[in-house]
């Protein structure tokens, strides 16, 4: 009695196990196949044979005894259905598939066997065929005249056509979803998460950043934050990022454009890149904005970083207005940002104009190089960040990006506005910094 029950169970399991059997079967070819791709490649293959009716006509995997359940029967049904729909291409495809099955797989009885065999055939055909390769195969088949299956449709219709659960758990897309993302610009959320504790302390305790008007940053869509630059070691990009991450109600991500000399400095460049900095150039900025991201630019660039302490908070030329062109072309609002505090972190007393390690100059601060690398430690200065209301550029068109006059005017306007905001913040400070460095 009990034996029988166990037998039954085994039976049921065997019936239900085509997927498991497949995933444990060793890859027959010399090429290494990762298991998930085997699984989904079956799903995809069967999808190519019959993507459209698969949603309704597809039987549960355990009613294999029913004639309806066999793959061939389904293809027959598909042929009929295609005739009904009047789609000769689909019909041709189904007939072709049937013929192929008849040729190569006379013994394929149930679906499990069939997909096993199909899979092996796919592997034996001269290489592994992962699911998206089948898109290529579909394209190939189309070129051979069996034109009916749209590549995109194949992709969409077949995900989960075998089992949504399997697909999400072990399928290739599941692995893709779960694996740690390093985005195309090199930003690594994992790296950031590991440093978040330190960065938070830096932001809250060390620099005690106070932010006003962070809500002015649009809560969705693309936008360009334009800020003043400062300090021999530019911490402002990172702190602005932390401000958005920690204090903005809905946005959490900011990419800032870093100058070449930061980006190509050993260790520093990679470090800021993993935290979200991107090398400053028009192409990168455009790509980021087209993905509706928040991008911070420091148009003063190297001039802002190389500003002596005596000239602090006097904004330099804002480049050639590249960011204005960017905003006009991509239709992004410009959000002016003033940052005060960055200039006192590593007060630059003198610039040693010696090139080395890719740096444009070597900074001389009261503590560097006097105390060695420790001298570059940021001073615990209180920071203030003021975010102004977005500058509306909607009355300009993207053609205006080529108009030097308009760009120049807008550039001056934005610069003047940020200078005013910076002055306001500096005046607000309760204390004055010593002017002993000639300031």
């Amino acid at each position, binding site marked *: 009695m009990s034996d029988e029950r166990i037998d039954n169970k085994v039976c049921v399991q065997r019936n239900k196990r085509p997927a498991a059997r497949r995933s444990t079967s060793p890859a027959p070819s010399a*090429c290494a196949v990762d298991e998930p791709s085997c699984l989904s490649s079956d799903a995809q293959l069967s999808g190519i044979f019959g993507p459209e009716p698969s949603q309704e006509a597809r039987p549960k995997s355990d009613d294999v005894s029913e004639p309806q359940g066999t793959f061939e029967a389904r293809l027959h049904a598909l042929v009929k259905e295609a005739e009904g729909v009047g789609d000769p291409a689909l019909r041709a495809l189904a007939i072709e598939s049937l013929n192929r099955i008849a040729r190569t797989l006379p013994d394929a009885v149930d679906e499990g066997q069939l997909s096993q065999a199909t899979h092996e055939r796919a592997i034996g055909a001269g290489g592994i065929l992962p699911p998206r390769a089948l898109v290529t195969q579909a394209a190939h088949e189309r070129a051979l005249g069996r034109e009916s299956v749209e590549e995109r449709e194949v992709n969409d219709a077949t995900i989960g056509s075998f089992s949504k659960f399997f697909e999400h758990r072990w399928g290739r897309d599941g692995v893709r979803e779960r694996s740690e993302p390093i985005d195309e610009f090199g930003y690594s959320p994992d790296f950031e998460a590991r440093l978040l504790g330190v960065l938070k302390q830096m932001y809250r305790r060390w620099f005690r950043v106070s932010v006003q008007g962070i809500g002015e940053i649009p809560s969705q869509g693309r936008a360009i934050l334009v800020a003043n630059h400062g300090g021999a070691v530019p911490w402002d990009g990172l702190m602005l990022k932390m401000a958005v991450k920690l204090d903005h109600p809905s946005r959490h991500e900011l990419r800032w454009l870093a100058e070449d000399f930061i980006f190509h400095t050993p260790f520093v460049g990679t470090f800021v890149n993993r935290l979200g900095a991107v090398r400053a150039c028009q192409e990168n900025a455009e790509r980021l904005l087209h993905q509706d991201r928040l991008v911070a630019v420091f148009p003063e660039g190297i001039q802002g970083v190389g500003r002596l302490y005596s000239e602090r908070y006097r904004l330099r030329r804002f480049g050639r207005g590249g960011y204005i062109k960017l905003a006009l072309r991509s239709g992004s609002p410009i959000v002016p940002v003033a940052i005060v505090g960055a200039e006192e972190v590593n007060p630059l007393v003198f610039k040693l104009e010696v090139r080395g390690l890719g740096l444009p100059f070597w900074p001389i601060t009261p503590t560097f190089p006097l105390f060695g690398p420790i001298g570059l430690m940021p001073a615990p200065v209180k920071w203030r960040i003021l975010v102004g209301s977005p500058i509306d550029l909607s009355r300009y068109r993207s053609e205006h990006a080529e108009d030097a006059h308009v760009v120049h005017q807008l550039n001056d306007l934005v610069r003047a506005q940020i200078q005013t905001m910076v002055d306001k913040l500096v005046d607000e400070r309760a204390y004055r910094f010593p002017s002993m460095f000639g300031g």
Partner: protein
Amino acid sequence: MSSKRDAIETFGPEAESHRREKIVGRRARVVALTGADSLIGRNLIALLEEDHFVERVVALDISLPEGAGLPKGLGSKSRFYKVDLTRPGVGARLVEIFQTESVETVVHLAFLSNPVHALAWSHELESAGTMHVLNACGDHGIAHFILASQTMLYGPLPQNPNFLTEEHPLRGIRGSSCLTDKIQAEHETSRFSEAYPQTLVTVLRLAPIIGPTVSNLVTKWLSRRLVPTVLGFDPLIQLLHEMDAIAAFKHALDHPTEGVFNVVGEGVLPLSKVIKLAGRFMLPVPESVLHTATRLLWSLRVADAPAEFVRYLRYLCVADGQRCMEELGLVPAFSTREAVLDFVGALRMREARLLGR
């Protein structure tokens, strides 16, 4: 080349479809492959042997393509001609072959996958060889020309944007003749494209290829126990699975499309993650030291690449594959990390002596 694409657009989509039909509509095609005894060449021959609509495959190389990808040697459709592109009189011989076989499509694969010491020879093969092939194509009047190129030719430059589009100039590395020869081949091809508007010219710029069977710079570099990198730099790396590389050529043959296309795997990986995935140890070396050591080892014929290639370990050289997906309609199956994993699987099997070279 872009002007020609514009011209097609100005004539409307009908003109283009008509043009396509001129090539695809006939179906039975004769495809010639130069550099047939290469990874892509051998596999492409095998693929074309299967294709019902290919009448003949004309394999041109200095050695008979066999081995990996072609276990049983050339199939019934294929014909082999021994052609040495470095010979001065090779142009006439190519025209003769093209005419006797009535070749319609030429796939030019005769490029060195690894840098070599014989610079004069490689210049003759890659730069002058392409010229000979193009001249023969022009004389014979073929319908479709496909050139194999690389995204590495953009060069690892500090001013590169994160994603290089096809419009970006090919800068290579100054002083690296193995790249400049290939760049010259591309320039020759674009000149050819302008001179012969009736021939469709497709240029496929492939990202560095990785995979279970390929053996090139990348796989050799990753097969070491200690992988040298540049101290303080961790550039983003983009790779292409070998199968996608082969599929790209098959796709370009099946869907003749004019233009230059970057064929790249989806996504990028930092160099350090690639090495981690391969289970190797990173050996970070200051750039000057690595440069000097590589130069020394290269001159001693020990290193796989000249010293200039160290820059690939420092600066970005990542291409944008958008146009390939949209205009050519080719979506590479493997992302960069899947390609690395596939290579690593084979690497592990080789280490366990379960897989031959």
